[in-house]
């Protein structure tokens, strides 16, 4: 998870004698033998299905006859681009991805900073904070649907009692709020892993750096800016990238809660993919949606790598 973190660090103040490429081995066979099982495995269980997905995206194929599709070239891609839903789905997918990543980072960072300081019961707190991560998604969707119930949901009760809203509101069937509800659940589910990864990075910051800055009389905001942020920047970038590509493909939580409704308010790309391929049996068109998703993820990844290289040059070698 911290691959580029490591790369950034080794490029910067590389510790002597470790890291990749320091001591290239003579025997060229060994590295291939070591990755061979993983490579073969991924070729069979990921590359082959992906290629098959790419092939399907160029065909008109029914779910019931996945092997006898008709080749249609780029027609499916054309249909997506001209579909009236294209912009809507694109917009919802972007909002969902952006908001869930930012939400998870904010809450995850807060939790990580809080758990980084020593206090009694820290082990308990760490375990407690991890619960959403451990909670199975099917169970999560079921309880949140009930908690967001319009008439009897505890969320309505709490918000009304606290005076946040005057009366019980509608959530999952309300185009203005459904996405907020789904995002709430998403952020709740993914902030723990964010917090743990960031916490790990925080703990790697040497105490001397804190001490130095406290001697300088820096206030907490300054410490965060000058010590913490540079220290965890590489990790932050990597986890952001992961959260982004995971959010772009997240499906179960949304489907179990709203199936993309109401009025398209929670209909992300993958929700449309599932509906087209599995409900409407349009496997070819569904595969096309999937390939578009993969393409978007690849672009996002490229963008992140560009940013991280720029930061790398600026930040660490300066």
């Amino acid at each position: 998870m911290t691959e580029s973190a490591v790369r950034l660090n080794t490029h910067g103040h590389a510790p002597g004698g470790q890291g990749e490429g320091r001591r290239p081995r003579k025997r060229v066979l060994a590295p291939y033998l070591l990755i061979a099982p993983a490579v073969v495995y991924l070729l069979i269980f990921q590359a082959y299905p992906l290629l098959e997905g790419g092939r399907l995206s160029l065909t008109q194929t029914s779910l019931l006859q996945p092997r006898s599709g008709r080749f249609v070239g780029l027609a499916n891609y054309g249909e997506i681009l001209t579909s009236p839903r294209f912009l809507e789905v694109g917009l919802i997918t972007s909002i969902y991805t952006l908001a869930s990543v930012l939400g998870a980072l904010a809450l995850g960072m807060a939790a990580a900073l809080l758990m980084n300081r020593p206090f009694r019961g820290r082990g308990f707190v760490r375990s407690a904070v991890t619960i959403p991560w451990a909670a199975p998604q099917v169970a999560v969707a079921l309880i949140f649907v009930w908690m967001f119930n319009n008439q009897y949901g505890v969320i309505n009760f709490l918000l009304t009692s606290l005076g946040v809203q005057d009366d019980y509101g509608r959530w999952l069937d309300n185009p203005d709020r459904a996405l907020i509800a789904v995002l709430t659940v998403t952020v709740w589910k993914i902030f723990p892993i964010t917090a743990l990864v960031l916490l790990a990075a925080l703990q790697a910051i040497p105490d001397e750096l804190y001490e130095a800055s406290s001697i300088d009389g820096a206030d907490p905001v300054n410490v965060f800016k000058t010590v913490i942020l540079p220290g965890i920047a590489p990790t932050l970038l990597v986890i952001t990238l992961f959260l982004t590509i995971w959010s772009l493909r997240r499906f179960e939580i949304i489907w179990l809660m709203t199936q993309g409704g109401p009025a398209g308010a929670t209909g992300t790309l993958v929700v449309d993919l599932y509906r087209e391929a599995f409900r409407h049996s349009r496997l070819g068109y569904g595969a096309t949606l999937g390939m578009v998703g993969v393409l978007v993820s690849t672009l996002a990844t490229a963008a992140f790598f560009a940013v991280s290289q720029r930061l790398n040059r600026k930040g660490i070698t300066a």
Partner: protein
Amino acid sequence: MNSLRRLGRKGLPRLLVIVVVVIAVFPVYWTVHTSLLTTSDLFSRSPRFLPDLANLDVYQRVFYETPILMWLGNSFFIAFGTTFACLMLAIFAAYSLSRYKFRGKGVFGFGLFITQMLPEALLVVPLYALFVVLGLLNNMYGLVLANTAFTMPILVWILKSAIDGVPIEVEEAARVDGCSTFGIQLSVVWPIILPSIAAASVIAFFNGWNEFLFALTFIIDDAQRPASVGLASFIGELSTPLEIVMSAATLYTLPAVVFFLFIQRHVVSGLAAGSVKG
């Protein structure tokens, strides 16, 4: 002034910790709570916040009237299988990525990344056809294989970062002692990165424990079902017994949490190992 500052430094974080813990725990608490409600309490506008222990017998019903124990057993098998298979594949790949420079390394790294972008729904149909050919349908080993494909790449990154952090001198000392490459890994490298292995295990375990779509599609034998699908099967055409669903959900959530409790000590330091740099 002074006491205010101290409050700011000590009280506020403490309060915030409580807030974060409540946010994290409340929905799970509410699952337990809902499982213990009678129908009339369920439809009350002013919910009670303490569970009604008089209804604990719902758990007895879940144990006796549903195959929950079998489902949990299956989930456990799948989760552990996924964890072991992932580690098995990832640990050598990680060592190779960390210690060697070789042609194709970049491509492999990029390939690992791609796997994290693929929507399961895109792969499920080709995988199904593949599993028919390989005879992997309808058994839990097949699910282990499918889950491993999605999870193992993450583990490779974590373990690679961890191995990066192990000074190469340690290995060289062992080599002088006459250890083979494999022997070095087994006796020198792995023990050092044990916390990272723990962290990686947690990720693999949770992924295996949680997985739904493949289990739904690849398994038709009720006796092979994991709890994720079992739980969903309570959502009926005509009615959904909420108290049964919620108690089953509780029983399904708890083992994962307990597993984490056992291993949590190592997880943070394990994740940290990758970024520890002098």
